[in-house]
């Protein structure tokens, strides 16, 4: 990352892709599994969204794996909320981690974690 006066430049792959992403309270949301780019004829392409989700990772291996993982996500009942899409305008800080100005509950990134929690709390003595 470099500071050039009032503008900032970043190396998107090095500084953003695969980095951990946290919400405005510092809570883990996962990793930047993918980034969508908007191509605009005659204007520079714009970074559109940060994508979080296993199906995004799967599709980076190949399209078939991506679809298969999507199927698993639907089977687990979280397909509707995957992939988690966060508009790039919500990215607040890009450093060791990517910080967004949303709370984790405003996205679908914690759904599976919450579902598993209901099971885990049933285990006697579990903290």
């Amino acid at each position, binding site marked *: 990352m470099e500071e050039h006066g009032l503008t900032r430049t970043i190396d998107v792959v090095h500084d953003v892709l695969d980095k951990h992403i946290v919400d405005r309270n510092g809570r883990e*949301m996962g*990793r930047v599994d993918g980034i969508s780019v908007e191509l605009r004829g005659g204007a520079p392409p714009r970074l559109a969204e940060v994508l979080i989700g296993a199906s995004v990772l799967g599709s980076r*291996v190949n399209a078939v794996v991506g679809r298969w993982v999507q199927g698993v996500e639907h089977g687990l009942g979280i397909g509707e909320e995957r992939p988690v899409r966060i508009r790039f305008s919500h990215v607040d800080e890009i450093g060791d981690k990517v910080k967004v100005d949303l709370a984790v509950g405003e996205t679908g990134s914690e759904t599976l*974690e919450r579902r598993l929690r209901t099971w*885990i709390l049933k285990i006697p003595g*579990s903290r």
Partner: protein
Amino acid sequence: MKKYLEVFLSILTAMGGFVEIGELVFTVNAGAKFGYSLLWVVLLGTVGIIVYGEMAGRIAAVNQDPVFYLIRERNGYALGLGTLIAANIVCLLTCAAEIGGLALVLKLLVGGPYRLLVLGALLFLLLAVWFLSFQAIERVFGLLGLLMLVFVFSAIYLHPDWTQVGRSLLPNLPHVESPRDYLVYAYFCVALMSSIMLPYETYFYSSGAIEEKWTEPDLWINRTTSYLGMGFGSIVSMGVLVTSAVVLGPLQIRVDSYEQAALMFVPAFGRWAVTLFACALGVGCFGAAIEITLNAGYVLSQSFGWPWGIDKARRDATRFCTAFTVVLLLSVLIAVVGFDPLQMTLISVALTVVIMPLVVLPFLVLMNDHQYVKQHKAGPLANGFLAALTIVGALMALVVIPLEIFGG
């Protein structure tokens, strides 16, 4: 004072975790077949794991993130995924071997059907990983690790030829009966190296550094723990080899059961031989199984960005807990289905050495990136040593292991 006690316990844990089932199986057979000849491989492997482990601890302390967390970031998804898959396959097989070994140890101590004992082992492991904190696990296994010293005691008691032992710390070739034995020797070199330089140990160590909240000022603790802990562990390992060489070597037997291996304690411990051997092996297997189980949780969570940590409340890291539980259950399933733990050990060790470059080389890239280690970069000597060791080891394995399998 508290800090020094913690360092002492960390050293004991590293020492106790050094000898686990794979290492024990190969070291006992190495001693029985080739006498002291393979001691230099134990020494070389130890230097390798010390260098590797210290680097992993250094990254964690400096960067405040463990190794696996950073591998995907620095090396990209494809390589990160390859490393993750390889690490998990080896974890699964090694864990199954440790659990199988634990069941056989319980069989030696209390008797009973093997499958029931596997389920008993599962219960102990689940209780440990679900209800103990990281510190409690360290303290328990740190102190139990002292039991491993029985191997060192036994070796000293047997009054081996110390000059010969000393000479065997340098690369050497044994006297063999047929040229085919050189192939077997090469196989043991590869297998012993692999069983000492287990990647999961360094990922676990690096995650543990974060659990213990090490920072840059604690780098001396990292160096002390890795040098002394793994160094002492290596002495335990050499104790196993020397004892086996003195007791089992002259018997010309191939050791393929724990009852046979336990015989090596008879001269030193008499009627306590089997009990002590079983207890020491049990501690090694139990500790290793816990480490591997937690490590699976660590590497999956760190790769995918889930909250993780055994010191977190379980409800705050549910995917991490689910991941390690699933891996544990799968390992138990493999053990219960009845695969011979010794066979699983052979396979997991063979796989480990072949995938080693995939695991170590991305790590070396990390160790040379100023962004991740600041001024604490690895020097060219350490880089070159680790790179050479893993590449040569993998190439040897690709040649030697198939020949050994096909040659029976």
